[in-house]
């Protein structure tokens, strides 16, 4: 129990429909546990329930049935609400909707200010958070003049400054260009490796998911796959059947295998596939 930070127990949740219409559940009978220090990616096509998981994870919405526990605290218990939101911070897809101040460092300070933290401590946290995401030299800039990737990193710094133990990011790279995506992934990895923060992120980019320790795949409100990237992407047909892509490297390995070519080793990343291909080419 003690090393579990986030626990979903038979969670079902549905959104309210118009005029009392009953909608199908967005998440149904979902059970999962996330341990402290994990780096987890969620995959699933649009409407599969991933974003709802993000909202459930710190009590922005609470289950219709079942329970969500953050460090053992039930998100339904309003007395623990502040503690829960301090423990799990959520970053959303569109950085423009999450920036509140007119100067970068004031924006990052917004969270800790609202937690009633001492000004000197806020100063320290803001500087540190901006350094972690590589935005320190922009601290006096106006956020609306930053690029998308820079804004998203400011939004992440705003969450880090609250010193949560877990950060949940809902498609943080969806609106970014390749460089912005690389920068945000780098920042997320630093949080995980250097600060030991548990990172849960939702993405449609398979190359990003491959960098996680663990991948959870959702389909039609249910959890359908849970394993390491290697395990999850080994079943190429299954992943495609779920409306998802596999990384190009896995797809090529699979095509060669289906063609009767004896390809060993891993094909998850560029370097792995280069080695595997080099090996079969050497064999001739």
């Amino acid at each position, binding site marked *: 129990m003690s090393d579990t930070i986030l626990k979903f127990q038979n969670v079902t949740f549905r959104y309210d429909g118009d005029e009392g219409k009953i909608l199908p559940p967005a998440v149904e009978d979902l059970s999962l546990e996330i341990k402290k220090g994990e780096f987890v990616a969620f995959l699933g096509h649009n409407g599969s329930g991933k974003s709802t998981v993000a909202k459930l994870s710190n009590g922005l919405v609470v289950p219709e049935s079942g329970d969500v526990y953050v460090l053992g605290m039930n998100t339904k218990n309003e007395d623990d609400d502040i503690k829960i939101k301090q423990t799990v911070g959520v970053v959303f897809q569109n950085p423009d909707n999450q920036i509140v101040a007119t100067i970068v460092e004031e924006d990052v300070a917004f969270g800790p200010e609202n937690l009633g933290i001492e000004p000197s401590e806020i100063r320290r946290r803001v500087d540190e958070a901006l350094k972690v995401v590589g935005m320190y030299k922009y601290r006096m800039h106006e956020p609306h003049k930053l690029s998308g990737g820079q804004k998203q990193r400011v939004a992440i710094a705003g969450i880090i400054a609250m010193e949560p133990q877990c950060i949940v990011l809902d498609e943080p790279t969806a609106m970014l260009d390749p460089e912005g995506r690389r920068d945000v992934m780098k920042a997320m990895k630093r949080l995980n490796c250097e600060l030991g923060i548990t990172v849960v992120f939702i993405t449609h980019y398979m190359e990003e998911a491959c960098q996680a320790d663990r991948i959870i795949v959702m389909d039609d409100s249910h959890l359908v796959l849970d394993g390491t990237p290697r395990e999850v992407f080994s079943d190429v047909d299954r992943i495609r059947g779920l409306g998802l892509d596999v990384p*190009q490297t896995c797809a090529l390995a699979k095509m060669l295998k289906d063609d009767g*070519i004896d390809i060993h080793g891993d094909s998850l990343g560029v370097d792995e596939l280069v080695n595997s291909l080099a090996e079969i080419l050497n064999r001739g």
Partner: protein
Amino acid sequence: MSLLQTENLSYIYGEGTPFRVTALDNVNIEIEKGELVAVIGHTGSGKSTLMQQFNGLLKPTSGKVLLDGEDIHSSKTKTLETRFRVGLCFQYPEYQLFENTVYDDIAFGPKNMGLSKAEVDKRVRTAAKYVGIPEHAFETHPFDLSGGEKRRVAIAGVISMEPEILILDEPTSGLDPRGREQILSLIKNYREQTGKTVIIVSHSMDDVAKIATKVIVMNNAKVEMRGTVDNVFEKSDRLCEIGLSVPQITEVFVKLHAMGYPVSEKIYTTEQGFAEIKKLLKGGEALA
């Protein structure tokens, strides 16, 4: 004469203020009839500004935009005509749906062109077919559709105006792989069936590799490269330097090539990669 052409086109935002930014700097490009042009570049490189120049939403600070060799700002009538001939579909166009039914939303553009009711109806049905929206969905409220469907309705709203040049700004961003695939194949089919010119702005190099006949790379308000997918992607190092990337599979073959294996570096899709490996293995067998 090119269908669409820019001549020393420059555009500056906020001229005369402290916030002066050069968004386009002496851009010269030509787009021919029937091409599928992909414009790529990092955020802020000037891509979207260029698109807004193409249909006359913005006026050049200096230089010209020529449609069929004629300056699109030569007269008010000409500018207006350009707006109908060059259809622009903005990024996240689904946020611009506003009518009460799918049908009305697709019909909005052609209605404003002053077409007859019968012609509007014909165009709505044709456009809906291109984007794969079935007729039984015509009376649905656009807000009841999924993200990918909404986007297709929004694209149909531009197609229904039958522009000679269709411009789509980031048509696949924010969609899941299934939605992305649908949009890409509809763009491809639309171009093949109508023979019209399509310009897409994209951050996804995989998408570009799949459908473009010509690629224009923008960097810091200037044209950095132009050419076929081959011409552009072979400069993978330079693309990374300016904040872009090449498809993952291209990286694999560039590395194999650098290691001395006789593979082509011009591999952008898994199918091409598969064929390349097969070719080499066959060659090897023949030698043995």
